[in-house]
């Protein structure tokens, strides 16, 4: 897992900047190809993939008149609220449990094997159970989002705490740091980069899980829009909802990145 996480992080940190002249160019090329393929060349039928015009109309429709039971704003807000709530609760509990296991070997031995047993069950596999237990409402969504975000935050917090340099710990102890000072001023700051890596993975998992849960069954939300559009065979709306999901994911990730830089001003590169 640690390796996976490291690889993932490297992936994000070093990927070339999206906004560059070359980037803009390839975006324009893709847009042009899209317009050509769905329009004049007629390579893809309108029932298979929307043209830019369909996409635009769907956007206008959902923003002004609403779709699948609400306007874009209500649907997006519904999903965003669930993700934020589930994510915050999961990070608090997950980082807490990770710290507990990292700090107390006894707690780790008690909890970790059980945790490792549950871990291979992907969050999406909890969706049917969540629906059986909590129905199609918000409670089921919050439950699966919580689970999705909980697991990576625990694992990465634990890895972060385990990876704290022993020398630093000894140095702090020699200088008379109390146990609470040790945790607050040494262990947590040192584990913070790993903790944030875990949170970033958690956030992605939250969105994937929410969309899946809303696709399986929901009354509101962006996943509900996707599902309704799919049932109505409305490719323009499908694409618009997908773009919304992507923007929401990117936006919340960016927000978390800002938070990360605030939380760790010493890591400014």
């Amino acid at each position, binding site marked *: 897992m640690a*390796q*996976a996480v490291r*690889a*993932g992080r*490297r*992936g994000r940190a070093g*990927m*070339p900047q*999206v906004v*560059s002249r*070359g*980037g*803009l160019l*390839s*975006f324009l090329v*893709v847009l042009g190809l899209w317009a050509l393929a769905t329009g004049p060349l007629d390579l893809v039928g309108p029932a*298979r*993939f929307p043209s830019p015009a369909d996409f635009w109309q769907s956007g206008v429709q959902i923003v002004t008149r609403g779709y699948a039971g609400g306007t874009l704003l209500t649907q997006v807000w519904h999903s965003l609220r669930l993700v934020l709530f589930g994510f915050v609760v999961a990070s608090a509990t997950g980082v807490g449990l990770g710290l507990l296991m990292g700090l107390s*070997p*006894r707690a780790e*031995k*008690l*909890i*970790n*094997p*059980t945790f490792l047993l*549950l871990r*291979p*069950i*992907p*969050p*999406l*596999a909890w*969706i*049917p*159970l969540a*629906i*059986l237990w909590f129905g199609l409402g918000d409670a089921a969504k919050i439950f699966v989002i919580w689970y999705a975000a909980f697991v990576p935050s625990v694992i990465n917090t634990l890895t972060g705490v385990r990876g704290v340099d022993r020398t630093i710990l000894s140095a702090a102890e020699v200088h008379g740091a109390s146990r609470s000072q040790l945790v607050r001023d040494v262990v947590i700051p040192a584990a913070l980069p790993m903790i944030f890596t875990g949170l970033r993975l958690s956030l992605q998992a939250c*969105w*994937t899980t929410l*969309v*899946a849960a809303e*696709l*399986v069954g929901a009354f509101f939300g962006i996943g509900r829009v*996707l*599902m309704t*559009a*799919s049932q109505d*065979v409305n*490719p323009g709306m*499908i694409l618009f*909802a*997908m*773009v919304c*999901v*992507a*923007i929401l*994911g*990117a936006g919340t*990730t960016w927000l978390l990145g800002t938070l990360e830089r605030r939380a760790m001003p010493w890591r400014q590169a």
Partner: protein
Amino acid sequence: MTTLSNAANATAPKAARRMRRRLPGIGESLVLSLAGFAILFGGWWLLARSGLVPEQVLPGPDAVLAEILHLMRTPFAGSTLQMHLLSSIGRYLMGLALAVAVGLPLGLLMGWSRRVERAISPVFEALRFIAPIAWLPFATLWFGTGIGGPILIIFSGAFPPCVINAYYGAKLIPTPILEASRTLGASSLRMLTDVLAPGALPSIIAGVRIAAGIGWQSLVGAELIVVSSGVGYLMMQGQTNLSTAVVMAGMAAIGVTGFAIDVLLRLIESRIQKGALA
């Protein structure tokens, strides 16, 4: 099933060695681990037994085990548990193979040539933010309930880690090696197969392992919605029939298979890394 037990056997000594190295008090840790399991399963069993929650909502671990054995003998939702699992695994392998076959060469090319990188990475980065499961409506639209839909979803989950890790693996290859092979007359294809791929191998393997994990998760999501066989379908049928035991049996099957896949790939990874060092 044989691969599963083989994998479990092979990791057991490794895990034990790791534990012995890290924990001197093996007795204590064993007792505590068992206590952890006992709390989970005992608490679950007691809660199911106490009658506080109806059997329909929370069957005990014994009931779930009995359901698993039952599902392995009598067909539910079309076939037995192992046949459902087999059809899931078949789909999964196809999607994963496709992601590996397209993702690795693309990632290597992006790492090697700046021009390819500049052309592809912006589009790739934008697409990456779309959750794999969000492709589901298009998957249904394009492929109906056929095999293509789930494969598209598994592909979209497993593709990005393949590309990213191949990209970074290729970036780590020293430029002189690339230039030397080019000067000595290697064709583009040979560059890909004989220089870039071996050089990037450790990173590639790690990427495939991540991809395998995400792919398996995406498969579950796809099966909940679009297909008419497989473990995810079994679980959805269990849910519609309000049979929690069937749902939990499906979760167990998914968890065990996912775990086995991860163990297997870890084994391959350590084998290859050992080979690369020697």
